[in-house]
């Protein structure tokens, strides 16, 4: 057949079932763009195809699949956002050394929050590298009611962000702690990190996406597979 010929009823069915040769399918697609009669005829059969799409035995997708998909989606979304607003994005977040030269930021926490800086001097190579702080440590607040004596700390080294906690109770049966990134008033988004704690309530976890433009890292207890949004009050909050 050619693109000018109507698609025979038999070929329409094979087309909908994906059973044509590639050549037949290509000709059919070309024909359909200009033939309302064939398009209409095919539409009559589409419900049957859609029923077949829905008819597979039900299988639940594993939770890690969403983590993987959303990690990539959010990464790309941030790239698009940055491309859309090139002027505002870098300015909104002062460079690290600028922040360090300023007085300590008001973290808005009742507990004394410490911001310590470790300066590492580059020693390799003959040309002296500019002094650059490569490690920052930010201590956060832990809910004193649920975790008296607990503490949490965020360490950033060359863009790699690690959250360490101690003195936390267990997340509960069938549950794990989930890490969230909060930016302004927006709903927290998953940092793609789930963890449990040892007998001392300690854990250390790397945040695979870093903290991006977030201004706080939160931790909540969630079902073991993770949640889409926080379902409980945060037990930990650490400013970035």
């Amino acid at each position, binding site marked *: 057949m050619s693109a000018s010929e109507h698609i025979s009823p038999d070929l329409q069915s094979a087309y909908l*079932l994906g059973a044509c040769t590639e050549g037949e399918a290509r000709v059919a697609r070309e024909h359909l763009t200009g033939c309302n009669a064939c398009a209409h005829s095919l539409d009559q059969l*589409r419900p049957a195809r859609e*029923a077949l799409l829905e*008819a*597979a*035995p039900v*299988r639940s997708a594993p939770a890690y699949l969403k983590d993987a*998909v*959303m990690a990539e989606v959010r990464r790309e979304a941030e790239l698009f956002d940055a491309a859309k607003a090139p002027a505002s994005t870098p300015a909104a977040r002062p460079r690290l050394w600028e922040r360090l030269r300023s007085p300590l930021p008001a973290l808005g926490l009742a507990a004394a929050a410490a911001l310590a800086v470790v300066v590492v001097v580059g020693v390799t190579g003959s040309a002296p590298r500019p002094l650059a702080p490569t490690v920052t440590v930010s201590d956060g607040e832990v809910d004193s009611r649920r975790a008296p004596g607990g503490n949490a700390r965020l360490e950033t080294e060359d863009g790699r962000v690690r959250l360490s906690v101690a003195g936390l109770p267990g997340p509960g049966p069938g549950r794990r702690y989930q890490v969230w990134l909060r930016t302004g008033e927006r709903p927290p988004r998953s940092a793609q990190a789930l963890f449990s704690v040892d007998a001392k309530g300690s854990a250390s976890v790397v945040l695979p996406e870093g903290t991006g433009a977030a201004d706080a890292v*939160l931790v909540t207890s969630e079902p073991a597979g993770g949640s889409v949004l926080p379902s409980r009050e945060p037990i930990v909050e650490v400013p970035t």
Partner: protein
Amino acid sequence: MIAGSALRRPVTCDEPPRGLVAVRRKMATGSHPIPAPLRRGGVSTTADKLGRMADEDLMALVAATDADAFSVLYDRHITAAYSLAYRIAGSQSLADDVTQAAFLSVWRSAGRYDSRQGSVRSWVLSITHNRAIDQLRRATRHTDRQAAGDVEAAERLPAREDTEAAAIEAVQGESTRALLDTLPDRQRRVVELSFYSGYSHAEIAALLEVPLGTIKGRMRRALDRLRDELVAIP
């Protein structure tokens, strides 16, 4: 102080279909109930709003690279997509790969979605179907067989009984049986071998040692019958 409000986890939208009636109802209603409203709270506003939006409106946001809108669409359709991928690919690891690739494709090509061509759900499931069949064909070198011609293909395919048995064995779900059981055996086989196993009409003709025209006719009668059954359900 620690800020944040407790939120209900968004409702899982995909109910297991039970029988042909459920399949029909899912298709008629756009397949997913609107999730119950999230509890009002400081951080729930956006999620609440997105959760109440229709698929088509969410797609417009996704096309503008709104990751939160995509997350809602993912939750609504993941079970159907994963079930389909698993049915075709036959293992969890392959279903994982197929579904991940399909949803990233949805994310990246959202701007090309055209509501005149069908619902968001059938678009998502069609992308998943295409990915799964491509994966299957790559894995089993279907494309080589197709290029090599029908006669040779028959020689390299598994014995007819084995292939049919495997295809039939894979049909385990109540809903699949309910739908496909409305078809005579011969029609059901060509649907399974083509739609869920990725064989072309020529391959099936060679496999079953039946003229190509007969296979195409069975495909036609199978889809006609499925359509009539669906229409007959109130």
